[in-house]
C-alpha cells in the first residue's frame, strides 16, 4: 500500500475510504487550491485529512476562527480565481449564512464548494436542522452523496458545476455519509489547475442595492441553467424492473440507501419504479413530471422535513399531474434518522403488502448507562469543582459548545443554559441583567476565538455584570485537537501565529482579569472569591492542556499517579463531588485506576487526608 493513497493513488485504484476522505480525494481530483474550515462533527475529518496529507504544495489549508470567517476567506479566494472548498457542520452554516447569501448573488468565478455536514439524530449537535433549506433559500445547486464513491464523484462534480456556473455549490452530507466507509475508485490527480483571473467589475462584485437587484435576476437565470443540468445529471437516475408498474418512489439523500435495502429485504424490486435524486437542487422538473405521468401513486422518501415532498406536490399541482402523492405520515416522521426498518414499514403501507419486519428480539433490560463524560485528568473538572464549591446553586451557569458542556452532569452541574456556539458571555450578560443574579459563563479557548470575543467586547461596552471563566486547554479538544489561535506556537508551526488570550481580554478593557493554572484549586478559588466581591466584567483564564492533547501531541508524561491512603467519609466526599472516571469501588473501598489516572492531583487537593501521590508502576 502506498503511504498516502489519497495523494499518491492513481487511476483505476480502489481504496476503502471514509466518506470524508472520499470528499478529500474528490476535491484533489478536481484540483482544489484552497480549503478553509471550522471543525465540527461530522465534517472534521475533511480538513483534518487535508492537514495530515500536507498536500505537497497542491493546496493551502486553513483552520479559520469561525465558519463565517472560513466562508469569507474561501469566498475571497474564489473571487481571486481559486477553486475553493469551505467545510463546516450544519449549524456552522448558520454562522456563515450572511456571506453565503451574498456570495450567491455576486457569484464566485474561481469555483466555491460549500460542505455542510448535517447531523440528523443529533449524534453530536444541538439540533437536527436540514441544510437543504439553504440551497433553496440562498439559490445554490446542491449535491447529496450517499456512498463513499459518490462522495468522491459528487465533490468533483460540485467543483465542475461551481466553475461552469460561477455559483457556489452546496455539497450536503449527513453523519451516516461522512462516517461511512466504502470502496472508492480513483482517477488520476490533475496537474495544477489555472486560476480564473479576477476582472474588476464593481457592478457585479460590490452588491450595493442597485447591483444586488440586478444580480438577483441574474442568479435566477443561472439557477435555470443549473436546472437544465440537473435534468440530465448522471446523479439523477431512474429504474423500473417492471415497465408496467404504475407505482413510483422518488428518493433523495440517505433515504436512497434505506430504500435499496428495503426493496431487497421485501423482495419488492419489481413492484415499483424508482427515481433517485443525487443532484437535489434545483429540481429537474421535466424529469419529475415525466416520472409522475408514468405513475398512479408516488411516494416521496427523504430524511428530515418534507422539503422535497412539498416541492413535488407543488410541481404536480402546477403541471396538473394526476398521480396521488404520499410522503411523511404520523409514523414516518421528520424526526431523527431514517432506517431500513422505517422505510420497510412505510413501503409495506404504500404497497399494501405484509411487512417483513420482525423487530427486536431481546427483552428490554435495565442496564447501567455509559454516557459521555469528562476524561480523567480533564482540567475542566477541576475548575467546575472549584466553582460549584464556591457558588453552589447561588450562581447561574451559562455554558457553551465544547467538551465542557458535559459539565452539566451531576455532581458538577455547571451548565444551566446554552444557546449556541460562543453564546455563553452574551447570553450570560442578558440573563444577569434581566434576573439580577450572579452569572458565571464558561467558554473554551477555541470557542472564545470563534465568537466569544465579540460577546466579551459587548459585555464591556454595555457594562454588563458577569464572571467569565475561559477554560483554556490549549486546543480544540472536542473535535479532535485542531489548531486554534490559542494553541502554543510550537504546535502551530510556521503557517499560523499564536494569539494571547489574556492580552486580548485586557485589550478589550477588562481590568479584572486573572490567569491561573486550572489544576491549582486554591488559586482558582482565591481568584473567584475576589471576583465574587466585585462587579462588572470579570475574567478568569484557567490554563491547563487537555489531557488527551497533552499525552498525544505534547508528549507529556506524568510519572506520578494518585492513590487512596485513607478510606473514609473524606475519600467518599471527594468521589461524590469530583466523580473522576479514574475512581472505582473495590468492594467497599475506594481506589484509583492507575491506567486512567493522569496524575493531575486534583483529588489530593480536594481530599488531602485521603489521597497521596505515588510513582507510577513501570
Amino acid at each position, binding site marked *: 500500500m502506498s503511504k498516502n493513497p489519497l495523494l499518491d493513488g492513481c487511476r483505476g485504484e480502489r481504496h476503502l475510504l471514509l466518506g470524508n476522505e472520499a470528499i478529500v480525494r474528490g476535491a484533489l481530483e478536481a484540483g482544489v487550491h484552497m480549503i478553509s474550515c471550522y471543525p465540527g462533527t461530522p465534517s472534521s475529518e475533511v480538513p483534518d485529512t487535508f492537514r495530515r496529507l500536507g498536500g505537497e504544495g497542491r493546496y493551502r489549508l486553513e483552520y479559520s476562527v469561525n465558519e463565517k470567517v472560513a466562508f469569507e476567506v474561501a469566498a475571497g479566494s474564489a473571487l481571486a480565481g481559486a477553486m475553493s472548498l469551505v467545510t463546516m457542520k450544519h449549524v456552522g452554516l448558520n454562522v456563515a449564512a450572511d456571506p453565503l447569501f451574498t456570495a450567491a448573488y455576486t457569484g464566485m468565478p474561481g469555483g466555491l464548494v460549500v460542505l455542510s455536514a448535517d447531523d440528523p439524530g443529533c449524534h453530536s449537535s444541538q439540533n437536527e436542522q436540514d441544510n437543504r433549506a439553504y440551497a433553496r433559500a440562498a439559490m445554490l445547486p446542491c449535491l447529496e452523496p450517499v456512498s463513499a464513491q459518490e462522495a468522491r464523484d459528487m465533490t468533483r462534480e460540485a467543483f465542475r458545476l461551481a466553475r461552469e456556473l460561477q455559483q457556489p455549490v452546496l455539497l450536503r452530507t449527513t453523519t451516516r455519509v461522512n462516517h461511512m466507509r466504502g470502496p472508492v475508485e480513483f482517477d488520476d490527480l490533475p496537474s495544477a489547475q489555472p486560476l480564473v483571473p479576477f476582472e474588476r467589475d464593481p457592478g457585479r462584485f460590490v452588491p450595493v442595492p442597485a447591483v444586488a437587484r440586478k444580480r438577483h435576476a441574474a442568479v435566477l437565470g443561472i439557477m435555470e441553467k443549473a436546472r437544465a443540468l440537473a435534468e440530465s445529471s448522471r446523479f439523477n437516475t431512474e429504474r423500473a424492473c417492471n415497465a408496467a408498474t404504475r407505482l413510483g418512489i422518488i428518493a433523495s439523500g440517505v433515504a436512497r440507501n434505506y430504500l435499496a435495502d428495503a426493496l431487497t429485504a421485501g423482495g419488492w424490486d419489481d413492484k415499483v419504479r424508482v427515481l433517485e435524486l443525487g443532484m437535489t437542487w434545483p429540481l429537474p422538473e421535466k424529469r419529475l413530471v415525466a416520472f409522475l405521468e408514468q405513475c398512479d401513486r408516488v411516494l416521496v422518501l427523504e430524511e428530515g422535513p418534507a422539503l422535497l415532498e412539498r416541492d413535488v406536490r407543488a410541481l404536480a399541482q402546477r403541471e396538473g399531474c394526476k398521480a396521488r402523492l404520499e410522503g411523511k405520515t404520523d409514523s414516518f416522521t421528520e424526526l431523527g434518522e431514517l432506517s431500513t426498518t422505517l422505510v420497510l414499514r412505510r413501503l409495506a403501507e404504500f404497497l399494501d403488502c405484509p411487512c417483513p419486519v420482525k423487530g*427486536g428480539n431481546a427483552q428490554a*433490560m435495565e442496564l447501567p448507562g455509559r454516557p459521555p463524560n469528562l476524561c480523567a485528568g480533564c482540567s475542566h473538572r477541576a475548575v467546575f469543582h472549584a466553582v460549584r464549591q464556591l457558588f453552589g446553586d447561588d450562581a447561574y451557569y451559562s455554558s457553551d459548545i465544547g467538551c465542557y458542556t458535559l459539565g452539566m452532569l451531576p455532581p458538577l452541574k455547571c451548565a444551566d443554559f446554552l444557546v449556541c456556539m460562543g453564546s455563553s458571555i452574551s447570553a450570560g450578560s442578558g440573563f444577569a441583567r434581566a434576573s439580577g443574579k450572579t452569572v458565571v459563563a464558561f467558554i473554551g479557548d477555541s470557542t472564545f476565538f470563534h465568537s466569544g470575543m465579540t460577546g466579551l467586547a459587548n459585555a464591556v461596552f454595555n457594562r454588563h455584570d458577569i464572571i467569565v471563566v475561559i477554560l483554556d486547554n490549549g486546543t480544540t479538544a472536542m473535535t479532535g485537537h485542531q489548531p486554534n489561535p490559542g494553541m502554543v506556537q510550537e504546535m502551530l508551526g510556521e503557517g499560523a501565529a499564536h494569539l494571547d488570550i489574556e492580552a486580548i481580554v485586557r485589550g478589550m478593557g477588562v481590568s479584572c482579569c486573572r490567569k491561573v493554572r486550572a489544576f491549582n484549586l486554591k488559586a482558582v478559588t482565591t481568584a473567584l472569591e475576589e471576583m465574587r466581591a466585585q462587579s462588572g466584567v470579570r475574567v478568569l483564564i484557567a490554563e491547563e492542556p487537555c489531557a488527551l492533547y497533552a499525552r498525544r501531541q505534547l508528549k507529556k508524561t506524568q510519572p506520578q499517579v494518585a492513590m487512596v491512603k485513607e478510606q473514609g467519609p473524606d475519600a467518599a466526599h471527594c468521589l461524590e463531588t469530583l466523580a473522576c472516571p479514574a475512581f472505582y469501588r473495590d468492594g467497599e473501598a475506594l481506589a484509583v485506576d492507575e491506567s486512567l489516572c493522569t496524575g493531575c492531583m486534583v483529588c489530593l487537593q480536594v481530599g488531602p487526608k485521603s489521597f497521596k501521590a505515588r510513582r507510577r508502576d513501570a
Partner: protein
Amino acid sequence: MTTDKQKRMRIYFTGVGGQGTLTATTLLARTAMDAGLDVVAGEVHGMAQRGGVVESVLLLGGWRSPKLDFGEADVLLGFEPLETLRGLPYLRAGGAVFSSADPLPPLSVSLGGAHYPSMEEVEAQTRRVAGQCHFVPCRELGLKAGSAQAGNTVLLSVACASGILPFGVDALEAAIGKYLPAKLQAANLKALELGMAALRI
C-alpha cells in the same frame, strides 16, 4: 474454507470509546474488500469518544445502509460484555454473537451506584436470542499477545475462525500484514493465533 462471495451479511460492532472498536471495524472491512466482497461500513464519531458507547456496522454482499436497526444484524461483535448485552436487540433471532468477557465498568458502576450484570447473566441473556455465542477473555489474551488493543484482533480471529463469515482467518492474517503498522504486526499475529485457539476450547 469455502467462501461464499454472494453471502449478504450485516455485522454490528459495539464497544467503549478508546478500545479500538473502529480500528477493528476498518480492519475487517478491508479484509472483506480484499476477499472480493461488496463492503459498506458505518460508524459514529464525536461525543461517543469521551468514554461513551461506540457502535459501528459492516455490511457485506451489497447492502447499502450504513446503519442497522433492531433485529437486522446477522453477527454481533461485542468488545465489552455490557455493550454486547445492550446491543443484543440489534441481533436477528438466531444470529451469532462473539464477545469479550472482560468488563469495563461504566462510571455509574465503578462509583457504586449501579449494578453490573454478572457474566452468567450476560451469557444467559445472549443465549436466549443468539443461535450461537462465544465469550472470549479478549483483554487477557490481548495482553498475552502484547497489548490490550490486540484483544480486538483476538475477537476478530474467533469470528473468522468460526466459519460464519464469508472469509476465513487466512484473509484476516493477510489484512493484518497489509494494513497494520509494522510495529503492531507481531502482537496482532499472536492475537490471531490465540483467537483460533480460544475457539477450539
